[in-house]
């Protein structure tokens, strides 16, 4: 285990053991086999020196900054900072010192200098309504900025559910006409890291993978790294045994809830949500929604906001009686219309009746 990065680390007082421990944990979080932790440590240790770090440009669109908050509050900032040390974050509005024309200049310089090589990170959705006027930076609509920045990018990371799937801005009735990155950009590799917000270690995991193996991690059909989104919350949930035994909390304060039983009937979307919360957890591994007694909202799935209510069990329909009264009215009207037609036909047949005589029995 040798290389510029580990040397840098050593100078900062980070031992090889510390680094190995970090990599073992990262591999565990990425659901890689324990042996991969060593490979990762070996590879990252050899990451290039500061002069040739890959450039990362981070553009915020229609978003709430929750994703940035999440990333900057990752549980081992010093170590994760190390990973960021392996890259060059050339533009991040929230974090960068520069502002105004200075910032714009930095962005343009970075794009020009690293053309075809930089990693573009997007958080937030792209509003298409009113020609994109709902969200502009420096007089440019998000759509324009995205197209411009995407042109020279090696790959794009769509950070958070808004960038990945449209997220809350896209929720019905979607007033701004919000769309996801992949709705706009079709010719670049896109990695979706959905979640509201996404788990910070996913971002570092993706970067670590990029640095370790020189490639993007394997993605699922929704463009998400399989390592983190390969299984449902439900599959990895520590409450899963109770589900299998049919033990469900019925309210948030009943005996079942106190016993830590399955929250399925309280609307948990764990069975249909792919994310790593159950294993990676939140706030430095302290807890996660289901562990704190609340069902999963399904925030890493497309259109989770409109998936029929957070507290409705998955087996419950959304609102099937929505059109029932209209349907009843239409049915009744149709029925009455047919009745009139039928009655007309019947009385026509009756009035056309010719009394049968004996002769009429034969053809």
């Amino acid at each position: 285990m040798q290389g510029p990065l580990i040397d840098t680390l050593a100078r900062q007082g980070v031992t090889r053991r510390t680094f190995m421990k970090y990599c073992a944990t990262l591999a565990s979080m990425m659901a890689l086999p324990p042996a991969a932790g060593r490979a990762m440590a070996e590879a990252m240790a050899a990451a290039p020196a500061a002069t040739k770090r890959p450039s990362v440009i981070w553009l915020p669109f229609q978003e709430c900054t929750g994703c940035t908050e999440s990333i900057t509050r990752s549980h081992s900032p010093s170590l994760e900072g190390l990973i960021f040390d392996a890259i060059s974050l050339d533009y991040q509005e929230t974090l960068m010192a520069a502002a105004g024309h200075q910032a714009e200049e930095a962005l343009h310089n970075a794009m020009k200098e690293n053309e075809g090589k930089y990693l573009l990170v997007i958080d937030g959705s792209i509003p298409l309504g009113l020609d994109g006027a709902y969200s502009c930076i420096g007089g440019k609509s998000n759509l324009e900025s995205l197209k411009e920045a995407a042109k020279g990018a090696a790959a794009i990371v769509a950070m958070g559910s808004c960038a990945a799937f449209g997220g809350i801005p896209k929720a019905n009735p979607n007033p701004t006409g919000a769309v996801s990155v992949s709705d706009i950009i079709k010719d670049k590799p896109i990695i979706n890291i959905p979640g509201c917000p996404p788990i910070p270690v996913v971002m570092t995991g993706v970067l670590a993978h990029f640095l370790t193996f020189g490639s993007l991690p394997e993605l699922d059909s929704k463009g998400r790294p399989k390592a983190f989104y390969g299984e449902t919350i439900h599959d990895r949930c520590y409450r899963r045994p109770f589900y299998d035994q049919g033990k469900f909390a019925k309210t948030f304060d009943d005996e079942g809830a106190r016993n830590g039983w399955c929250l399925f009937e309280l609307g948990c979307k764990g069975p249909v949500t792919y994310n790593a919360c159950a294993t990676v957890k939140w706030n430095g591994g302290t807890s996660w929604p289901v562990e704190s007694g609340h069902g999963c909202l399904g925030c890493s799935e497309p259109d989770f906001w409109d998936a029929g209510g957070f507290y409705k069990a998955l087996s419950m329909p959304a609102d099937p009686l929505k059109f029932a009264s209209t349907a009843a009215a239409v049915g009744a009207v149709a029925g009455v219309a047919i009745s009139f037609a039928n009655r007309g036909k019947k009385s026509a047949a009756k009035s056309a009746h010719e009394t049968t005589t004996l002769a009429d029995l034969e053809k």
Partner: protein
Amino acid sequence: MNDMQFLTWVRGTGLDIAVSIFVLGVLWRLFEIYSLGRKPDLAAPRSTPGASGWNTVFRRSVPPPGMMKRSPVSYIGGYIFHIGLAIVVFLFAPHILLVENLTGLSWPGLPSQFVDLAAVVTMAAMVVVLFDRINKPVKRYLSTFGDWFTWTLTFLPVLTGWMAVQHLVLPYTTMLALHILTVELLLIFLPFTKLFHAFTVFGSRWYIGKINGHKGVVV
């Protein structure tokens, strides 16, 4: 479409469509059928205790003398799968929860193990009556595409529901979505196939009871 979107669709838009078609179809068909009316019976009536429309609505649930022996599979199989369906549909706790969510009405359910058993027995009875339909010359002769189709429509929701509960073959999400989808198909086709007898059986029994009751005949 992934399984989550599939589930969201079947329990959202899909169910909206199915319930709407069902409600629309039932009303349309009921009007279509019963608005044809009938002539008043001018013959002097004869009254006999038990000869009325309402009496027959209930009495026809019991086989007439000698018939059980002539067609035991139809009767026993028919009883089992109709009662089984009623248990599975109306006494399974999640189904009651569903009705409660929609209407506020609730009633006690049965233990899920019992409902589980009822589902298995119901499916077994349905398979038996299906074989009877294939085997018996009369049933085979009368059978049309509609008969095979409606059998499938009725069988699938029971099968998929049972498989979802038992976690068989497909993940719960997908199986649950398939279960809801098959129920939707059932709802959509019910008003327009022989399955509509679920509604008209009461009208038919009432009419025969009424028409014959006018003559003082207990049918």
